[in-house]
């Protein structure tokens, strides 16, 4: 057993990493639903979920159990194989795409092995292309679900949705070409490192400034690609009941749901990595004071949770919330006491805060924007986004060429 472990160390590490990441992503997914419901509720002057657990924190668990125990009818006349395949495909592809994302630059040294954060190998030179390949296959989950249900609304929803995803995939792919040209690589790690070429510039060195047009196209196309508001036509409930997943119930519906939320996370990761410097700090590298920022945020937040917890209505909340607050405060203190841990945590801290910001923007848009009409959606994708992203590619290549000619770089 021991010999097997040492000879196949890489394999064992990868399997453990996959299991861990899967667990984290699914948990984050569950709490993303809570986060979304809370934020949308507050945008609409409501409280959102607050009955199950303190501040509704156990709501995702209750939802999950509900999904598991609901009756799971298979409608008559469905194409059985494809009907079962579609949610599996959607979920599997959404989860696979997370594997490409790197979560930190430095390895952790454990049992004599350098363990990097993220599953994909360091020299995955097709990084972003692999992601696009997975996204390209993602259309099948939606299209096949709509077709196999043998029902009108899902078919219309599936058709709309696949047309939308195909149309926006073009703009999505074209919009990152500018970033690729600037980095000279498909590798996501190289793309982040290219934004750190001038460590003293901090936030000004990120791709968002030269590539603001590309970012606009990318984010819009990505929101459309994940079928979220304002591009959630496939599931426009007033027109199509629930679109492609109308005929799915119970856990098969949950699989589509998890797939959608996972792709939201992937898109947020990509936005962060391509345009917002990934795990780079927005401050110049010489400002070491900012290394205490995680603690400065965590400790007051933890104290606030304790304060809020002791005054909470239910006894359960009065027990759980202060415990959580203490844990958060303790984490903040640990970061101050152990500078090594603090230094290691910087990159993941910035990456995660940026991802969280993008997830908030997603929810924010859902709370505030109305839905596009179908023809508007198509016109927007083909007549505005695609030409804009092509212009962006041409402009970027000209600037790079000019710099090579006259800039002496």
């Amino acid at each position: 057993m021991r010999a097997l472990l040492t000879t196949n160390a890489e394999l064992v590490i990868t399997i453990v990493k996959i299991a861990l990441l899967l667990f984290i992503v699914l948990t984050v997914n569950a709490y993303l639903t809570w986060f979304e419901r809370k934020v949308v509720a507050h945008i609409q002057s409501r409280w959102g979920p607050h009955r199950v657990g303190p501040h509704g924190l156990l709501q995702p668990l209750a939802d999950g159990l509900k999904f598991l125990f609901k009756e799971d009818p298979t409608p008559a006349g469905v194409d059985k194989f494809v009907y079962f395949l579609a949610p599996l495909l959607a979920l599997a592809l959404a989860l696979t795409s997370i594997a490409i994302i790197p979560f930190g630059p430095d390895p952790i040294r454990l049992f004599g092995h350098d363990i990097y954060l993220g599953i994909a190998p360091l020299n995955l030179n097709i990084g972003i292309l692999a992601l696009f390949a997975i996204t390209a296959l993602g259309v099948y989950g939606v299209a096949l679900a709509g077709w196999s249900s043998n029902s009108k609304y899902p078919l219309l929803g599936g058709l709309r949705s696949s047309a939308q995803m195909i149309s926006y995939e073009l703009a999505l792919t074209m919009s990152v070409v500018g970033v690729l040209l600037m980095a000279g690589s498909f590798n996501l790690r190289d793309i982040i490192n290219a934004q750190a070429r001038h460590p003293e510039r901090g936030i000004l060195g990120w791709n968002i400034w030269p590539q603001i047009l590309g970012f606009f196209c990318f984010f819009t196309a990505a929101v459309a690609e994940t079928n979220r508001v304002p591009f959630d036509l496939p599931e426009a409930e007033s027109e199509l009941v629930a679109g492609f997943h109308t005929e799915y119930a119970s856990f098969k519906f949950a699989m589509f749901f998890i797939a959608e939320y996972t792709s939201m996370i992937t898109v947020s990761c990509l936005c962060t990595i391509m345009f917002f410097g990934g795990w780079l700090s927005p401050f110049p590298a010489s400002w070491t004071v900012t290394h205490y920022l995680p603690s400065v945020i965590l400790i007051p937040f933890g104290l606030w949770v304790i304060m809020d917890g002791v005054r909470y209505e239910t006894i359960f909340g009065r027990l759980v919330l202060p415990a959580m607050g203490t844990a958060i405060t303790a984490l903040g203190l640990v970061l101050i006491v152990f500078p090594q841990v603090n230094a290691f945590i910087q990159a993941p801290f910035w990456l995660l805060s940026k991802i969280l910001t993008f997830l908030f923007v997603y929810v924010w848009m859902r709370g505030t924007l109305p839905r596009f009409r179908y023809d508007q959606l198509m016109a927007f994708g083909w007549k505005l986004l695609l030409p804009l992203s092509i212009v962006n590619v041409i402009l970027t290549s000209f600037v790079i060429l000019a710099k090579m000619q006259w800039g002496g770089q």
Partner: protein
Amino acid sequence: MGWAMTAPLVVFFGLAALAVIGAVSLILQKHPIHSALSLIVVMVALAGLYLLMGAEFVAAVQIIVYGGAIMVLFVFVIMLLNAGVEEHTSLSKMAGPPGLLLVLALAGFIAATVARSGASVQAATQTGALSSTKGISEMVFKDFVYPFELTSFLVLVAILGATVLAHREKS
């Protein structure tokens, strides 16, 4: 040289079996959507084989273009036309025996070629210039730039033709 089942070899046989099963299933399936799905399996298995040979870029493009774009259009059209189970006419049934003969002939030809070359058949592990994106772009945009541009011109003409044919003037 003995046959050691190394990890790449195991992956190769797995992917090759997947591709063959997908291809056979493509022909045997009765419903067009199932056939299209089988073809996607073949495409993805081929991409895996390219990846195994170190041609990362080709593998990714294989999935994006064939697995994604082209097959999505196939599935899309089948869905739109709501094509049913395929019908067997007397002519299509007649195509069976000659087809089988052709398959056997092709298989025999390939087997004969491999047997004649014998030990000189080398395992294709690294595909040289094709393995890196840089190598491919240098080939396409430097060495073969004129054929490449001509091909893209041809594609452009085909796209324009398709648009003209599909777009009927409303009179």
